[in-house]
């Protein structure tokens, strides 16, 4: 019963953060601010959802593997955001130089 409540809370907050990330992606005015919304909310949303999965399946291979997926997503997501921002920044600078 308590486990079910924990899973419900985790899934609910994960859905909330995924929704906020998507809304930010649509509402924000330029690329960098969109990246703020999407990166942070997606990272936490994915973490909470997979944590709910790990709690649901108890001590099994699925929970160990979903923890590995969480670690992987939490390392790669900020890195990917940084690389996109860097690419955008440098290509903008190049265009300014050409003018």
């Amino acid at each position, binding site marked *: 019963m308590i486990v079910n409540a924990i899973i419900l809370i985790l899934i609910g907050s994960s859905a909330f953060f995924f929704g906020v990330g998507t809304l930010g992606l649509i509402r924000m005015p330029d690329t960098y601010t*969109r990246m703020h919304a999407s990166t942070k909310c*997606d990272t936490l949303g*994915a973490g909470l959802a997979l944590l709910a*999965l790990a709690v649901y399946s108890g001590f099994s291979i699925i929970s160990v*593997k979903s923890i590995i*997926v969480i670690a*992987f997503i939490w390392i790669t997501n900020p*890195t*990917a955001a940084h690389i996109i921002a860097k*690419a955008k920044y440098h290509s903008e600078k190049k265009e300014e130089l050409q003018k």
Partner: protein
Amino acid sequence: MMETVFLGFIIFLGVTMFVCLYRAYAGPTAADRVVAIDVISTKIAVLIAFLAIQTGQESFIDVALVYAMMGFIATIAVSKYLEKGKLY
């Protein structure tokens, strides 16, 4: 009961994915499109992990791990192309 909640969550993820797809379609610059595709690939990785529970196939969670890696590499490749105009 939990299966119903998971099913609802999967449907919710699918709907938000289509909303992100609007940004990939409309985004004024290429970087916006890359951000949208990156978000979608993270969501698909989570969705595959939930499908593993929903269908009872444990090996699907490996697919989620590999999909997360592929999304990361695709993002890096496209950003590198945007920055330098070539991939190497």
